[in-house]
């Protein structure tokens, strides 16, 4: 029973991170209708950058982390301007393929620059574990949950109250109307990529601190698909919920598997079965906008 509880807590923590990554995925999709297959590489690049600053330059975390975020901001903008702006107006297959190309390019580049083995972060917190409700939980897990909640709240505030968030929502709603109101749609596209890259990097660093940094991080970018499809591709709240559900679900699948089935590998593969089922019965997810057309 303790194992089940432990797994559920793990699921919620990992799920919250999925939720964060899914949110930044949805942000790009909402703003520019681009399905970003390179989302996982944002985590990877962010985590490696932070790791490099912390180990190679021996910077303290509170300096290295903001530099990482600034770097990711610039990276996102440059990527959008150089690679994705020329693709505006191209068919959806081409755009998907460009992001897939980006994904394998950056993944290989990170492997080339930093090697294929997982490297641990230097310790950031004084005490490695703390007790929550009688459970021994690693401090980084608690921090990661806190950070996830913070980011989600930040997103909520950003889209509801900030000028740029409102402009972004307007762009997502109707580009022409947004343009006629004086919003620079190009800027919004670039900013959506920048923010998405930055938020993903936060998630990347968090996971890196917990598990060490390795190219396995980019698998988050794949795991994000079950989450966003479940929640609905263009719903931020749906992304969070989808992420949580997927996180809990894969841990439950792991529990069921380890207790009774012994098939192995269910942790990795269960979300994809769920994905297929959702696509068959409810392709627009829980909160997604339904395209009204008969197919």
């Amino acid at each position, binding site marked *: 029973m303790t194992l089940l509880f432990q797994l559920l807590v793990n699921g919620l923590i990992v799920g919250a991170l999925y939720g964060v990554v899914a949110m930044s995925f949805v942000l790009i999709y909402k703003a520019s209708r681009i*399905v970003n297959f390179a989302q996982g590489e944002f985590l990877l690049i962010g985590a490696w950058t932070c790791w490099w600053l912390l180990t190679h330059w021996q910077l303290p975390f509170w300096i290295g982390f903001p530099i990482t975020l600034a770097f990711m901001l610039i990276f996102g903008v440059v990527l959008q301007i150089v*690679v994705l702006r*020329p*693709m505006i107006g*191209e*068919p*959806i*297959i*081409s755009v*998907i*393929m*460009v992001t*897939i*190309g*980006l*994904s*394998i*390019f*950056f*993944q*290989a*580049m990170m*492997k*080339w620059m930093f090697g294929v083995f997982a490297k641990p972060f230097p310790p950031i917190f004084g005490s490695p574990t703390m007790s929550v409700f009688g459970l021994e939980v690693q401090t980084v897990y608690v921090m990661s949950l806190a950070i996830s909640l913070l980011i989600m709240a930040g997103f909520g505030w950003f889209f509801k109250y900030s000028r740029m968030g409102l402009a972004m929502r307007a762009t997502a709603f109707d580009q022409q109307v947004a343009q006629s109101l004086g919003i620079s749609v190009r800027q919004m596209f670039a900013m959506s990529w920048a923010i998405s890259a930055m938020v993903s990097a936060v998630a990347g660093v968090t996971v890196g601190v917990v598990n060490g940094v390795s190219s396995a991080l980019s698998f988050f970018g*794949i795991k994000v*698909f*079950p989450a966003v*499809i479940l929640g609905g*591709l263009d719903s931020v709240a749906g992304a969070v919920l989808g992420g949580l559900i997927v996180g809990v679900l894969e841990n439950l699948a792991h529990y069921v598997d380890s207790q009774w089935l012994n*098939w*192995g*590998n269910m942790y*990795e*593969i269960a979300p*994809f*079965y769920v*994905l*297929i089922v959702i*696509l*068959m019965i409810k*392709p627009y997810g829980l909160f997604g906008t339904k395209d009204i*057309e008969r*197919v």
Partner: protein
Amino acid sequence: MANISLIPCGDFKTTYAADTTIFPTVTSRNFAILGVLILLVFPAFMDRYWLNLCIQIGYLGIAALGLNILVGFTGQISIGHAAFFGFGAFASAWLSNSFAIPVALAIPLAGVMTTAVGMLFGVPAARLKGLYLAIATLAAQYILQDFFARADWFTGGTAGTIAEPFSLFGFAFDTDERFFYVVLVYMVVMYILATNLMRTRDGRALVAVRDHYLSAEIMGINLTKYRTMSFGISAFYAGIGGALYAHYLQFVSVEGFTILFSIQFLGMIIIGGLGSIMGSLMGTAFMVLLPEVMQAITTALSGTAIDAALNLKDAIAFLREMAIGLVIILFLVFEPDGLAHRWKQIKAYWKLYPFAH
């Protein structure tokens, strides 16, 4: 009209037969036949290295053509092609090992089995389009990969499985020189099949689904049927390609059929040209030769300052992957119609040669 030897200026046709002919002129037909004849004597002159590359281009080209029928002609994206390719490889090995079916028969049967699996994952394809389908096939890729690792009875599990060499009437095609002909025959047959498919009503229906699915439906094309059919055809080609791969290497391991391989297939058809049959082959050749060219460059650079700075020997595997990604991006940004389009432009230039404008 039927017997002209050079393409006349302009595009004037008076019959449907003239419009749908495979070879517009006698010369182009003779050139195609000559090309196949040259390939027939290839093994006599080429060493093993080049033969191996040609065989690779052959079986990968068949699978890439299948993907092009799905992506280029029907406009449905699939990110799980390598999984179907792998399924074909295992199916053929399994059929010939477990049921003692001769390999020559097991290869088409493996194609049929792969079609069945493709249809299974194609059921969502009937309802989905665009990026939803991309995501569904992504799931198919991971589920099939997991299945390969799990199904000991079918794939031999982590140990992999042994595939019998191809043999016909007691003659074993077990060397590169001999297997070259097997691949060549399959390739010619599959490419002619695809070319002819595109000349039929079904082929035109696929293109109509790609160009404007609503108009296609109004014209009486059953979208569900043609989307599923396209998925099945693509899986069939992948299965045949995979089966040839299995009987060429005579060993299939579960590790090879990753998502990177799927992306490589997509790269092949993008580089070659979406919606172009010969383009699939050009793109495959490009993708197969790219690592070889990079290897050659690395060898040429060994010992120089660049080599020392980048540590090329260890980095080559990653540089290859990076090159694949980069080539896909560059082609999509600068030449979205691929090598086939380039080839057409070259031909058009020479057609009007001294007076090209």
